[in-house]
């Protein structure tokens, strides 16, 4: 018994000695000057490494273009997104319960505020439709800032929130805005054909979805909004939108909706990416 205790005491005193040895003035097995030297070494060494890292990073950043990223191959098929957007891609509300859709209305109002006609007219051009709005740089001379085309809120008609400030949510005819992700230099259509959005129900929900209305008409993203020149060159770029209005969706049931972009240039997205060239969301309208 006593042996163990002695051993314990010995071990702990050894430990204490290791931590601070009063004879040799060693803290954790090193004297002050030894600690000082090793810490100084590591300080200098790490400063040098940091310097080297900063240098390589600086050189790397020098090789980058300010207006266009080096690689865009991962963005061949642009993603699509909806508004309003909750935590999940789920639009679920009760017609009679104002609180349940109030958030969506707020979200849409905020999202659409830069699309107000007054603002658009002030900052952007009125471009000729159905053709690309190309603004080439002439060699080294940048043609900046580049101009953008107007996308007026009124173009969304029933879904603009102007005529119907509840976007149809109070009547069980909700509007959902669909946007195509911005990709620099992307040309989404050729031969003057603008890409357009079509929505449909997934799986067995096709009978529940009811008729849909698209704004602007046919759900097109007009070609004049392309190509995008990046946020540095094209500061006031306005992303075009397509609004989908569910006119008579079934109540009290989950409807899985998928909207797709239809374009004659964009590649079909991969099977793994559920948001490339398409967007899926769940719609549920309760009557109470």
């Amino acid at each position, binding site marked *: 018994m006593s042996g163990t205790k002695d051993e314990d005491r010995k071990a702990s005193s050894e430990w204490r000695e290791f931590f601070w040895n009063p004879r040799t003035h060693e803290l954790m097995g090193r004297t002050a000057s030894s600690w000082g030297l090793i810490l100084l070494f590591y300080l200098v060494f790490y400063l040098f490494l940091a310097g080297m890292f900063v240098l390589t990073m600086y050189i790397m950043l020098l090789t980058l273009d300010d207006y266009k990223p080096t690689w865009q191959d991962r963005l061949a098929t642009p993603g699509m997104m909806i508004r309003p957007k909750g935590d999940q891609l789920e639009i679920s509300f009760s017609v009679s319960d104002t609180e349940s859709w109030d958030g969506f209305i707020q979200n849409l109002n905020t999202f659409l505020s830069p699309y107000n006609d007054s603002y658009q007219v002030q900052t952007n051009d009125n471009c000729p439709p159905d053709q690309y709005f190309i603004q080439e740089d002439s060699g080294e001379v940048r043609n900046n800032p580049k101009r953008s085309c107007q996308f007026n809120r009124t173009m969304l008609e029933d879904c603009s929130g102007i005529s119907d400030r509840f976007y149809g949510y109070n009547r069980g005819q909700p509007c959902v805005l669909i946007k195509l992700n911005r990709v620099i230099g992307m040309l989404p259509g050729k031969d003057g054909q603008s890409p357009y959005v079509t929505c449909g129900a997934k799986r067995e929900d096709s009978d529940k979805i009811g008729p849909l209305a698209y704004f602007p008409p046919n759900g097109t993203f007009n070609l004049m909004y392309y190509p995008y020149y990046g*946020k540095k060159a094209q500061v006031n770029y306005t992303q075009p939108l397509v609004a989908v209005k569910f006119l008579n969706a079934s109540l009290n049931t989950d409807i899985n909706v998928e909207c797709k972009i239809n374009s004659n240039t964009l590649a079909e997205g991969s099977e793994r990416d559920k948001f490339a060239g398409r967007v899926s969301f769940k719609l549920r309208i309760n009557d109470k």
Partner: protein
Amino acid sequence: MGYGRSDSYRVATTQDKDDRSPKKKKGGTKDMDDLKKEVPITEHKMSIEEVCRKFQTDIVQGLTNAKAAEFLIRDGPNALTPPPTTPEWVKFCRQLFGGFSVLLWIGAILCFLAYAIQAATEDDPAGDNLYLGIVLTAVVIITGCFSYFQEAKSSKIMESFKNMVPQQALVIREGEKVQINAEEVVAGDMIEVKGGDRIPADIRVVSAHGCKVDNSSLTGESEPQSRSPDCTHDNPLETRNVAFFSTNCVEGTARGIVICTGDRTVMGRIATLTSGLETGKTPIAKEIEHFIHIITGVAVFLGITFFILAIVLGYTWLEAVIFLIGIIVANVPEGLLATVTVCLTLTAKRMAKKNCLVKNLEAVETLGSTSTICSDKTGTLTQNRMTVAHMWFDNQIHEADTTEDQSGASFDKSSVTWLSLARIAGLCNRAQFKAGQDALPILKRDVAGDASESALLKCIELSCGSVRLTRDKNKKVAEIPFNSTNKYQLSVHETEDPNDNRYLLVMKGAPERILDRCSTIMIQGKDQPMDEELKEAFQNAYMELGGLGERVLGFCHMLLPEDQYPKGFAFDTEDVNFQTDNLCFVGLMSMIDPPRAAVPDAVGKCRSAGIKVIMVTGDHPITAKAIAKGVGIISEGNETVEDIAARLNIPVSQVNPRDAKACVIHGTDLKDLSQDQMDDILRNHTEIVFARTSPQQKLIIVEGCQRLGAIVAVTGDGVNDSPALKKADIGVAMGISGSDVSKQAADMILLDDNFASIVTGVEEGRLIFDNLKKSIAYTLTSNIPEITPFLFFIIVNIPLPLGTITILCIDLGTDMVPAISLAYEMAESDIMKRQPRNPFRDKLVNERLISIAYGQIGMIQALGGFFSYFVILAENGFLPSFLVGIRLNWDDRAVNDLEDSYGQQWTYEQRKIVEFTCHTAFFVSIVVVQWADVIICKTRRNSVFQQGMKNKILIFGLFEETALAAFLSYCPGMDVALRMYPLKPTWWFCAFPYSFLIFVYDEVRKLLLRRNPGGWVERETYY
């Protein structure tokens, strides 16, 4: 020491074999102490009648069958209990749950737990955690199986040594001789043995006819010992009337009463003592354990710190657990233990090629750290065959050639005296070559006859041609064989010359007895009267040869006068009717079991390698000392206390023992030494010889050396060596002459029985220790670039730079071959010129290695990895400044329009592909910086330019890891299987500057190291 004292007695009597509680051990210790005492046999001092009475047997009739059956049931079969073996599944589990496995198991369990939580709370849980959990489990099981099979393979070697032939014994039961299985022999049986038999049990000899037994495996005496019914010594091991279990009867016949069987025999006690000895961990096992402790400590510390940090930073429990898994996976060098095993296996194979067979993989390194070798004499240092070493004739000592290959010097063979001497030695000799060996060299031929006669036979055959021819020409007419009262052997022959009808009487025997019978002496072929001067010369020669530890025989002859002994004279050997004195003395021949040719050189090498070589033998001190001097264990010019006393002509007690570097200690003195005295001897004498030691004393010597902190290697072949072999840090048994018990107890077997192979073992062991350091330094370095991504991921919220799967790809994929290839690295300097490592100071993994691997090279590597990470993200549109804090949106599946620095928007999957591409690039960068790392790890002190790139395996490893990295990146389907994506060619070059920096940095460090030996750089960075 908390176990109840009162329990020990009860436990000692219980027979629960599986009970491995400490209490049992205590009972065991008591038994062990008992076994360590000397043999308690007393039967040799009893009269035969008493022995018969004790065993209820009859000297003529033997036991009755009923009694025999009863005794068999009481005592059990006459066989050694095989040493307890660990069940295979226990060994397997040890591999499965030892080392880092526990940490990985924790990681795997956490993975499953995380997945279970996810499955319970989310609709569509991501399979990542389940996948990772399965991978981790697979990793643990596969590495476990791998180590298990490696171990099993080396332990299988042993099975080939098992002797399966059942032994037979001839017993007398109920008055009839029956041949029974040796296992059925019981105490009290009357048994008969004859030349060639193995003695089936310990027997008290009742009657014997020229019986000689070979006790060498028990006592180390190289000469056969004669057995007779008389008690000649109090010590049962030395008395003539006991023959021991498993020793061999060389010639003659004997009859005796079995007094002990099975484990109670002397041999059995030694075997039990051996198998009961607790052997400590091998030095390398201790080192690896120490290193696992360090790594585990770091892993647990980091894991827990960041777990708490994650919780404090507001991550969810699940996220914190996933971080924990990542940190564990990054911290544990999964492939390292397998690498170590492979390195050891490779060395074991290399050693096997050089005739060192390693039974226990870890023992590979032990020889390298050995600081003391306790070597048995017979068979290890010596050739284990008597050989004529010196001759004295014409009043001059001549040296015979004792080397194995007859490369030594020869002597003048023209003297007539020599021819006479050779004739006597050839004629007065009963040994003869066994038939059918004419093709073999003389020294390799088997001889029927005792050791010294064989030695004479071979010596004469070598120098004078066929002995058989001489014998045919000189027909033997009469013969008196050697007996212990006469101490001579004589025979009478016809002469070669058919016209000469005289008879030739030849005689050999103990020199002083022979001299007494001589009145003349042959000098240069002429008979001269034996005067005082010549007698004195004889005495001097005899003393000198005896002092060399050699067995001396005198030879004389006489041509019997024809008038007294005409042709056809009937020589009566019973009642000697012819002249046996006034003979003519011819010369002396002395024999010794000579040292092996390679041994002195090997001992010298051990010396220069800082290893103390101690001889421990059962043989006589004089012989032992002579051999020790012969092989350099006692080096030239070093004296023992006795030598000093003799030189100064003062009593031994007046010599200061400190003046003598060498000492020869007799077993009986050893018995009386206290532990302190023993330590004193071992500490203060550099050259020690222990003679006449018992197996138990050998064990005490080994323990004494170990007490002084030495790592002890023991070499031996006999059963008597086996306890010491087992207790030693590494036991080395002899493959050819070694007994099964010794092989069982040893960790290593010298297939050619050559001590010199030990030097190879030491060299290989030291090399592998150095190379393991390099290998570990290499492997540990990549831990830093594996951990830092996680830390930055948690602290600054950037997208994860390196995933767990890619970490496993590094640890178990690309790092493996280069790490193993370092085991093939050549030594940097002459490793046989430095001192053995000090197990307390020279650790396998020390703080300097960690400082270099983690603090310096690892950091550069991490920067290289991060650099390529930032390059890829920046080139895809996410500039570094933009990344900090992006993690929350980045990892949100619902955010599919995340904006980058250029205003582009990314879906979850799109940016994840970029992230996984970053993982791949980080992985490739680690491979690139590991190129430089493996090159700098080739050497610890020298420049690579001094060392060269001769290691082909390493070059192969460089290409292999690169090819593997390219395969993992570019092989179609990898995006789904491992989520690794093809890299743009330029991304391979991101880490090149860092790789180059590593190389330059370490070359500069090593340059400073070489320039200032003992300087700050060495103290802080030389691992």
